């Protein structure tokens, strides 16, 4: 048996019976939905019509949520249902970034994700899903798609059907008959600030000139999907890059004009370990179920970059610790070897997020090319920021400041390129516009320029105290600038409607 749904919009009357029956059957909390009805109106009086579309999980054949789930809480069953095990879920909400359909939600009481699971607890008893039996119009058809004699298989075979976002390669198993294309394509209809007969739980996505839909197609009723990743995630991107950056610059501190001694010997490792620890705390604190963190290590889904990232962080932590311990034990040569090992590991620590975000298939902005390089460049920038706060060697030109200034310039140019290049999808273009707006609003370029100037100042100032102040300010500005950037990037990625 290979289940699926046909939603026959020729019959659907937009009555929300499925929405409410599902809430009852699965005890779905207020503010969240496993299935919902979207209204889109098209045309001008009197040739205007309201079109209904029932939206829900697609029980994908290549489910991105299953791939990204670090703890195998999401799984594809043999009957094609994508199920979620609430006892395994750690509440990381990566699935909500991976899903291009807004199908999952976070339960505020249990701290875990939930989703439509085709009422598996009913199908195992031989009963149809709750939304199917309630529907007055019999517009929702369940059944065995693999049985050519079944009603659902015949409908798929005989009627013209469409599916949502096939370009995402997910293999969705919900087939629509006679759905309005603009209702299936997110962002294809204009959105007012409130709905026809309901408040909006989330504000409409900002408008983007040139990409906004034509005005005679308007979404008039929908449900809200609040962004799931917030300050933990954008802060972690910075703290992780500080750790990575410290490792990247560690072998080169002498070249950068840092005075030999305890600071040069120990601070990079201490910084890397401290910020790796902060990163880990942020990641764990962000979980809906932090006490289940161990599952990520002991019950891992090895396809998930959350898991592989954790491995990278662990390897990095081990190497860095080894470097530190060896140096304390007076094994300077071995410590240097470990320090050199930290360079490629630091690059991975910074860059693995690119592969994680590449698994977030619902967020087109995050899928754009070059993320790995951009992350590593930002890590290097923060590494230079670490270097500038270390005391300079007397009489030696302090090139850490120059490096900081140069990397500030490079990152500014990269940022300019990021905002200027033409993304591959319309959604990514919209997100790019949001990103640009947020960046300009936050005065981010000013902070980057300030960091560059202070870096240069640090290089040329002679007195140790003015140089230290200048270096500290430069490092602070650099960190702050990247916090602003990551915040804008995380928000912009989630600001585009995907359902």
């Amino acid at each position, binding site marked *: *048996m290979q289940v699926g749904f046909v939603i026959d919009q*020729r*019959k659907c*009357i*937009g*009555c*929300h*019976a499925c*929405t*409410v*029956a599902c*809430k*009852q*059957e*699965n*005890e779905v*909390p*207020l503010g969240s939905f496993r299935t919902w009805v979207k209204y889109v*109106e098209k045309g*001008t*009086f*009197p040739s*205007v*019509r*309201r*079109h*209904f579309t029932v939206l829900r999980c697609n029980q994908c054949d290549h489910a991105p949520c299953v791939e990204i789930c670090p703890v195998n809480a999401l799984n594809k069953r043999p*009957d094609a249902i994508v199920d979620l095990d609430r*006892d395994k879920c750690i509440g990381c909400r990566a699935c909500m970034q991976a899903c291009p359909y807004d199908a999952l939600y976070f339960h*505020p*009481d249990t701290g875990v994700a939930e989703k439509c*699971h085709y009422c*598996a*607890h*009913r*199908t*195992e*008893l*031989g*009963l*149809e899903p*709750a939304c*199917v*039996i*309630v*529907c*007055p119009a*019999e517009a929702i058809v369940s*059944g065995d798609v693999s*049985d050519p004699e079944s009603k659902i298989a015949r409908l798929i075979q005989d009627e013209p059907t469409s599916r949502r976002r096939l370009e995402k390669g997910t293999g969705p198993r919900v087939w629509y008959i006679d759905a309005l294309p603009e209702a299936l394509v997110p962002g294809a209809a204009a959105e*007012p*600030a*409130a*709905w*026809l*007969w*309901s*408040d909006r*739980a989330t504000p409409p996505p900002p408008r983007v000139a040139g990409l906004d839909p034509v005005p005679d197609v308007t979404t*008039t009723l929908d449900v809200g999907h609040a962004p799931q990743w917030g300050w933990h995630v954008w802060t972690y991107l910075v703290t992780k890059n500080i750790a990575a950056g410290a490792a990247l610059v560690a072998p080169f501190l002498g070249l950068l004009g840092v005075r030999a001694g305890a600071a040069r010997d120990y601070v990079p490792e201490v910084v890397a370990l401290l910020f790796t620890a902060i990163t880990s705390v942020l990641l764990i604190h962000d979980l809906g179920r932090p006490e289940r963190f161990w599952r990520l290590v002991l019950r891992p889904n090895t396809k998930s970059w959350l898991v592989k990232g954790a491995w990278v962080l662990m390897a990095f932590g081990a190497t860095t610790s080894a470097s530190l311990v060896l140096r304390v034990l007076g094994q300077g040569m071995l410590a240097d070897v470990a320090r050199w090992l930290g360079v490629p590991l630091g690059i991975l620590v910074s860059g693995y997020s690119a592969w994680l975000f590449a698994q977030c298939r619902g967020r087109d902005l995050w899928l754009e090319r070059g993320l790995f390089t951009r992350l590593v460049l930002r890590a290097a920038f923060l590494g230079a920021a670490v270097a500038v706060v270390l005391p300079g060697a007397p009489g030696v030109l302090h090139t850490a400041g120059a490096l900081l200034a140069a990397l500030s310039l490079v990152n500014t140019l990269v940022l300019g390129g990021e905002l200027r290049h033409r993304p591959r999808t319309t959604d990514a273009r919209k997100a790019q516009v949001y990103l640009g707006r947020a960046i300009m609003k936050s005065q981010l370029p000013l902070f980057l320029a300030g960091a560059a100037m202070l870096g240069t100042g640090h290089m040329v100032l002679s007195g140790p105290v003015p140089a230290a102040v200048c270096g500290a300010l430069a490092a602070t500005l650099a960190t702050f600038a990247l916090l602003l950037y990551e915040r804008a990037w995380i928000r912009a990625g989630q600001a585009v409607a995907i359902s």
Partner: protein
Amino acid sequence: MKPTEDSAVAPSGAAWQVTKLESFPPRDRWDDWVEYDPKAWPRRVEHHYRLVPTICFNCEAACGLVAYVDRETNKIRKLEGNPYHPGSRGRNCAKGPATLNQVDDPERILYPLKRVGPRASGQWERTTWDEVIATFAARIRKALVENRRTEVMYHVGRPGHDGAMERILQAWGVDGHNSHTNVCSAAARLGYELWSGSDRPSPDHANAKFILLLSAHLEAGHYFNPQAQRILDAKNAGCKIATVDIRLSNTASMSDWWIAPHPGSEAALLLGFAHVILAEGLEDLEFMRTWVNWDAWLAVRQPGEPATFEAFRALLRAEYARYTPEWVAEECGVEADVVRDVGREIGRARGAFASHVWRNAASGNRGGWQVARCLQFLTVLTGSVNTPGGTSQHTANKFVPARWRKPPPQDVWSELLFPPEWPLSHHELSFLLPHFLKEGRGKVDVYFTRVYNPVWTNPDGFTWMEVLQDESKIGLHAALTPVWSETALFADYVLPMGLGPERHDLMSQETHASRWIGFRQPVQRVARERAGETFEWTWQANPGEVWEEDEFWIALSWAVDPDGSLGVRQYFESPYRPGERLTVEEQYRWIFENAVPGLPAAAAREAVTPLEYMRRHGAFEVEPVVYGTHTAPADVAGATLDMERGVWSRDGKAIAVQSRGAPAIGFETPSRKLEFFSPTMDDWGYSDAVLPGYIRSHVHPSTLDRARNEFVLVPTFRLPTLIHTRSGNSKWLYELSNRNPVWIHPQDAAHVGVATGDLVRVATRIGFFVNKAWVTEGIRPGVIACSHHLGRWRLEGQPGTDRWAAPPVRIEQPGPGRWRVRRTGDIKPFKSEDPDSSRVWWTDGGVHQNLTFAVQPDPISGMHCWHQKVTVTRAERDDRYGDVEVDTAASMQAYHEWLALATVKPRADGLRRPEWFTRPFRPTARAYRRP
């Protein structure tokens, strides 16, 4: 689909081997059905349930529900459809499962409450049912003893039962039944009644070839879910649908034609269709020749000339010659081609034209009753009466069984209910009660409002508040309600009555061409009794002390006449235990054993008693297919035939008509035919309205000055997920629908100078309200619309309407008769035992518009004409969202203006109402005549 007894549903715990999914658990396992806990999934934690069928109580459709009662906790886990229900066939709308919210609502009233401060001061104390019964019984007994039999009044919003209250009130001998009908369906009822003596249509949508809806049955109304199913059955089979609605409804969106004429011009549109049918010769001549009283019209219009059918045809064409598509296009503001195309489609549907109007244009406009009459005209022209795919009388498809020991009719007539100005009203002039009381037409000593919220629902709510606070006009007021309402705030007692799964009722509705009854049950009581417990009263098994009306009325009536000296008690004695008090179980047992044909036999086939059969099935189909009731042969024993008219009469009442040489039952009219021409209208002084015709509405375009931003406000449309004022207790429904902005066309919005979300002030005859604009292509230019389903409120700092639905307001009286409502906050999260209450994310709740409407009783039908002439402007500087201001002196003046339109004079013979017209709680023939 109904489950098969050998269905492949796996027992709990078995590995999943089934490949075919069923819709429902097989009934032989309803006593111990095992399901997995969805909150524990994928751990397979089992719960055991007793499945008890009942009837939904959220709209009038009476769809079947099955409650899953947990065998351990006796709590209701969920409510699904009942596959054995002939109307709803196992399916429900959003409001069915939402019943669970209402049962579990942390805001619900669990115990009888008694006012302790002045009325409307918000101070309540818990009391006992014994005290309630004693208080009301004494007061009612005194009224009966003193023969004040019009001072006890029962005012009902949602009846939700058939045949229950007649017994109670007639046993008391009072004329005290008041209803909500005149703010709802009175106009359509009159239009239908004049044709056939049945005041409701029963379209057989499933088999129709063409469907014309002046309704929104794919989303709301009587009977949304069952009729939507059947409309879609027809649509899927290729039937075309046209929908007439001012605003773009979901139904209109699903239709082949959406026609949005000028509000109030709908009758002209329908006559345009009739014109096309007549002009193109599409009418069913044979049907009309046989079943229409054309000869009576000829006798009046062409006296002395031979009454031939051909003469009638010629006269008919001449009568409707002016309704050409071009004239209609001009009058209605629609395309002439649409009139022609739809008219032809209707004509070609010959015999299978299904149609429906219940509120819509009929309830909006002065003369709206002609809309229903014109619609039925099309049904008659196409010979689609009582045919497969046609439209029947509701009496053909509704079955109300008799009850044990029927009391005689009351020998008294209340003019507070049926005043002389409206002899043809359908039914009571309910919404004018406060105006009548203010005028000194009478008083009400004991007043029961039951699931009735006139302060909020009716026009001119402030006048209701004034009168409900006046103890000289309303002596003692009990609000019988499952939920707080704005009216309950003004009562002396608030008596919690059960929701759908907490009470007994019997219901039948004309959902399709069949006849069925549905049985509402207190599911927790039934489940626990199945487990061996016993209860004297349902409130002992319900949440808190929530009772049911059936038992309440039995207990109250028993206490009114404990010794039988008033003659009341005899009707509340057990048919099985002489002299003992009737139990609710015995009441239904008697009905099912004695008054439902076929039920005892069906029960015998399952080796259970009829009562047990109904307890387990929840519904019974009395007659699966019903067509052509008017052609059934009549029993004319003891009757006499009027040879000239062809009418058989017995005891002065027409009972049959001679058809093709034999007596047939015909229709419930004096001629026993369909009365195209109404001698009754002629007889009662409405000689200009003897035929289906077009009356220009009080909001006809000629009455509006568009340059001054005058608009028609259409305030009558519903939302698919709400239920008047009884869904504030459902979080799932309010999450979906929680605001009612004013729909306005982009052209008009530009003229007024507003965009979506801007505040607008909508000024009526007596005040104004402030709401937000919703600029949409889904409405006709020149018209604005606002749903009447939202705008609930609670008085700041008082118990009241659920916090899911109602923001707090302050009501002030800046001067005599001057009232002002202002919101003092938003809907917001609150603490309760339901964790969801802290997750309420919506804030709006909508705006209460009905307060600003003057009463506008149609001079003939008595229907409140809902459409309002309004002026729309941008909000003023001090206006805030939700503001309402009204002057009740102006509203009394408006009442007098409309009263003056009801010009008919009392008859010399003293007859108050045509004797053949339906009247609920029909009194004695003597009471029909003024002394």
